[in-house]
C-alpha cells in the first residue's frame, strides 16, 4: 500500500515539484470518495495537479473552463431536435465522465455553480425531467481563485460543504522552483504520466478505508474537537455532524495511506485544516478567510489526551 502511494506521489511529482504533502492530501480525498477543491492564486499549478491526478488514477476525464457566461446546459447537456428521426435527442454534457475538472469554478454565476449540486451529492443528473446516472468513481476536482480576487462569485456554504477537502498549494520552495526553471514545460510532461492504479485496485483501496480501526479514545478526541468548535465563541457556527464524519473518514484514509490500520491523533490533526477550514467560520468573518486560523485554534486548545 505504502509502495503504491509512493509511486503515485513520485509520478505526480514529475509535474508538480515539491508538493508531496498536498498531493497526499488530494489522494486522501479521492480515496475517501470525496470531491476536491483546490484553491490558490492563478498560476500556482492547480490545473496541473488536477490533470495529473486524473491521469495517475487512470480515469476518464473532462475539463470545463468555468466562465461568467457559462450556463447549466453547457455542463449537463441539452436535447436537440433531430430532423431525420423526428424527435428530441439528448446530447450529454461534459459532466458525464469519471473525473470532472471544474476549472475556476467560482468565476461562473451561482446559477451554473448549482448545476453541479445534484451531481456531486447523488452521483446523478436530472435534465428535462429525466434522471441519468453518472459513471462510478465520479469525482469533481474543482479549482478556484481566492474570493478576494475580482470577478469571482463565492461558492455558497451548501456548495462548499459538498467538497470533502479544500487544499491550497502555495508557492514552491527554492529548489523545486529552480528545478522547474531548468526542466521542460510541465505541460509536456503531463502527457508522460502513466496510470498507476487499475479501477479494481482503486475500488479495493476505497473499501479498505472502512476497515481502519478507530479507538474510543480517538473518538473522544474527535468529539472534544467538535464540541470545542460548537461551544467556543470564536466560531460563528461549529462543525456539523456531516463535517465530523468527513473528518473521521479522511483521518482513516490518511492512516491507511501511511500503512497503518488504526487512526492516531496525528492523522486527525493533519487532515483537519483541509477538511474543516471551509466548513467553519469566524464569528466576525465575512469573506471566509478565517477557517485555517480557527482550526489552528481548535487544535491548540483541545487536549489530545483528555484531562
Amino acid at each position, binding site marked *: 500500500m505504502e509502495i503504491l502511494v509512493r509511486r503515485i506521489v513520485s509520478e505526480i511529482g514529475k509535474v508538480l515539484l515539491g508538493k508531496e504533502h498536498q498531493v497526499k492530501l488530494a489522494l486522501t480525498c479521492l480515496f475517501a470518495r470525496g470531491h476536491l477543491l483546490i484553491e490558490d492564486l492563478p498560476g500556482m499549478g492547480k490545473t496541473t495537479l488536477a490533470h495529473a491526478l486524473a491521469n495517475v488514477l487512470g480515469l476518464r476525464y473532462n475539463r470545463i473552463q468555468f466562465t461568467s457566461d457559462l450556463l447549466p446546459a453547457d455542463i449537463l447537456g441539452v436535447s436537440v431536435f433531430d430532423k431525420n428521426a423526428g424527435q428530441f435527442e439528448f446530447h450529454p454534457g461534459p459532466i458525464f465522465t469519471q473525473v470532472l475538472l471544474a476549472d475556476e469554478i467560482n468565476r461562473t454565476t451561482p446559477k451554473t455553480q448549482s448545476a453541479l449540486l445534484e451531481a456531486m451529492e447523488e452521483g446523478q443528473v436530472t435534465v428535462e425531467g429525466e434522471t441519468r446516472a453518472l459513471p462510478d468513481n465520479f469525482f469533481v476536482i474543482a479549482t478556484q481563485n481566492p474570493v478576494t480576487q475580482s470577478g469571482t462569485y463565492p461558492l455558497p456554504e451548501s456548495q462548499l460543504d459538498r467538497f470533502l477537502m479544500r487544499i491550497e498549494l502555495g508557492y514552491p520552495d527554492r529548489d523545486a522552483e529552480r528545478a522547474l526553471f531548468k526542466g521542460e514545460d510541465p505541460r509536456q510532461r503531463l502527457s508522460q504520466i502513466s496510470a498507476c492504479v487499475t479501477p479494481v485496485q482503486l475500488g479495493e483501496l476505497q473499501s479498505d478505508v472502512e476497515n481502519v480501526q478507530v479507538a474510543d479514545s480517538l473518538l473522544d478526541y474527535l468529539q472534544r474537537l467538535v464540541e470545542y468548535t460548537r461551544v467556543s465563541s470564536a466560531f460563528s457556527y461549529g462543525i456539523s455532524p456531516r463535517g465530523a464524519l468527513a473528518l473521521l473518514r479522511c483521518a482513516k484514509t490518511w492512516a491507511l495511506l501511511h500503512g497503518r490500520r488504526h487512526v492516531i491523533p496525528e492523522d486527525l490533526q493533519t487532515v483537519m485544516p483541509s477538511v474543516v477550514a471551509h466548513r467553519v467560520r469566524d464569528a466576525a468573518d465575512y469573506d471566509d478567510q478565517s477557517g485555517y486560523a480557527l482550526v489552528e485554534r481548535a487544535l491548540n*486548545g483541545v487536549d*489530545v*489526551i483528555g484531562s
Partner: protein
Amino acid sequence: MKLVYQLPRNSLAWLLVAQAAAIAPHIPRLPVWLVGAWLFVVAWRVQVFRGVWAFPGAPVKALLVIVCGASLLFGYGRFFGLEPMVALLLAAFVLKLLEMHRRRDALVVIYLGFFTCSTQLLFSTTMPAAVYALLCVVLLTAALIGLNQSEGHKQPLRSVQLAAKLVLQCLPMMVLLFLVLPRLGALWSVPMQQSAASTGVSDSMSPGDITRLARSGGLAFRVAFDGAVPPPSQRYWRGLVFSRFDGRRWSQARIAGFRDGPVLATPDNPQPWQRLVEVSGSSRTYEVIMEPSHQPWLFALATPRDYSTGISLTRDFRLVYREPVGKRLRYRVTSYPDYRLEAQPLPDWRLRQELQLPDDFNPRARRQAQEWYRDAGSTEAYVERLLDYYNSDFTYTLEPPPLGRDSVDEFLWGTKRGFCEHFAGSFVFMLRAAGVPARVVVGYLGGELNPLEGYLQVRQYDAHAWAEVWLRGRGWVRVDPTGAVAPERIEADLRSALSEQESQLVSGVLALDRYRAIAWLNRLRLQWDALNYRWHRRVLGYDSTMQAGLLRQLLGEVSPLRVALLVIGVGGAILGLIALRVLLKGRKPRPSPATRQYQRFVRKLSRAGLARAPGEPPRDFARRVATRRPDLEQAVLAITDLYERISYAGQAALVPELRRSVARFTATRNLFR
C-alpha cells in the same frame, strides 16, 4: 409610549398558575365579586403581555383599590377578623398583577403568593391541605425560577422540575427544623373564623335535632385509649346535661340556679360541690382529638376526674373548654366508670331544678305517670314499668312523624315512632311527672374502632340522647330508654338498629362509610382515616412536651449545646449529602489506565523542563523531545509507541508493560544546556 418591561413569558405563566393555586382553596370563603375581579385582572394582565392593552393609569388603579376596599368593608361589615383580612390580602395579591412594571414588582407578587399560601393553613390543617400548600410552594418557586431565566426559555416544565427538586432538597431540613425548633405558644392570637357554623350537638334539644345530626357523616372526635377499649355499650360520651323543659325544648339549667358555689371548677380553683362525686375501682385514661365544633363543651366518659389544662368541670359533672373549640383540640381525660354522684338526699333547690316541668303541657302523660307510679310502688319498679311500655310496640326510626303541642302525649299514645331524643325526652318527662328527679344527657354513643391504629372514631351520626335518674342512696344512674326499643343501637351501632332502608339515610350518599360492605373500599377508608389520625397526633399534635420527649430520647439530656450540636450535625449531613451529589454529578469521567500512565510520564518530562502543549499529539511530542534530548529518545519513543498502541490500536494487554516502562523512566534536567 413608555418602554415596558416584559416579564419572561415562562415566569408570567407560572406566576398566574401559582396564583390560581394559592387562591383556589380560599374561593369558597371569598365573596363572588372578588373571584370575578381576579379573573378580570388576569385577563387584563394577559392582554398587557400580548401588547394589546396598556397598564392602567394611576386614577384607574386608585379606583380599583377603593372599590375593592369598600366592597370588602361592606361585604363583611367589619375589617378585623380572619376572613376580611385574608380577603384583603387576596385583593392586594390580585390587584398587584396590574402593577407589575418591573422585576421587583413581580418578586413582590411572588412573595405575597408565599404568604397567601400560608394563610390557607389558618383554615385547614389537614394532611391534604398541607400537601396542597407544598404544591403551591413548588409552583411559586417555579415562577421565581422563571423570573431568573432568560427571555427565550421555552421549556416551562423544566422550571417546575427544578422547583420540585429544590423543594424536595429542602424537605429534610424542614423536618429537622420542625423537630428541633422551640415550640412557641401563640405569640399573637389569630382571630378565629367567625362565620363557621357550629357542628355537633347543640345547647338544646327538641324533637328532630339529633335525627338531623344522624344524617351527617362528619367526624366528631377520635379517641385513643391507653389500655383496652371498652365495649360499645359502655361508650357513653357525655356532652351536655339538660334539666330545663319548656314543653318542647330541653335545655341546660340556668347557671344562676346553682347555689353551692360557682358552676365551674378547675384544678386551681376547686369547688365544694366536687365532693358530691365518689369514685371507686379502676380508671380509664384516654386521649381525645376533637374536630372543631365551635362549641365549648367536650366529651368524656362518666365520670371524669383528671383532665388536661384549659378544661373545667361543670356543676353537672361534665367538661367544658375555656373557649369554643375553633380548631382541632387534643385533651387527655381519666374517667372512673364506678361512681356515685350526688348520692346524698338532694336539697330543695336541686329537687326543684330536676323536677321542673312546664305547667299546662301533656296532661295525659302527667296523669298516667302518677297512676303508674302508684301502681309500681317504688322508683325502680316504675322505671321498669316505663321501659316495658317502650318495649311493647314502639319503633326506632330516623323518620319520626312530626309532633304537635303536647309532644309527649302524642308520642307516647299516638305516633309511637321516634328517635333517641323522643325516648329520652318522654322518659324524663314521665319520671319528673311522677316526682322522680331525672334529666336528659346528650352526647355520643359508641364509635367505630379503627383496627390499624386501635383508636375509636366517633362520628356525628353516633350522636345520642339518654336519661339520668336520681335514685335514693345511689345518686344519678344512667338509664337509656332507647335500649328498650332498639338494643342493637347500644350493643352495635346506629345502622344495625335501623331498617335497611332507613340505614341508607345515615350520612350522605357519597360518604365512604356507607359502602363498608365492600371490603377493599372499607380497608382503604380505615387506612385513610388512620393516616389522618397519625397526622393529627404526630404532626399537628407535636407540642413542647412531645418535643422534649423526643429530644430526651435522642440526646439523653437536653441542653442547648446538645441541641445545637444535633442541628449542626444532622443539618450538616443533609446539606453535605446534597452538596456531594451536586459535586459528583459535575465531575469528569476518570481517564483510562493507559492515559493515567501517560499523564504520569508527561509529568515526569514536564519536571525535566519538557512540557507538553495540550494540543500536541503523543508522536509529535515524542519527536520534539527526541530532538531536544537525544539521550531520552529511545525511552520516550518506546513509551509513546506503547501508549499509542494501547490507546488507539486497542492493544489493552500492553498496559502493564506501559506501567513498568513509565515507572522505570527517569528524566533529569539537562544541566549542561
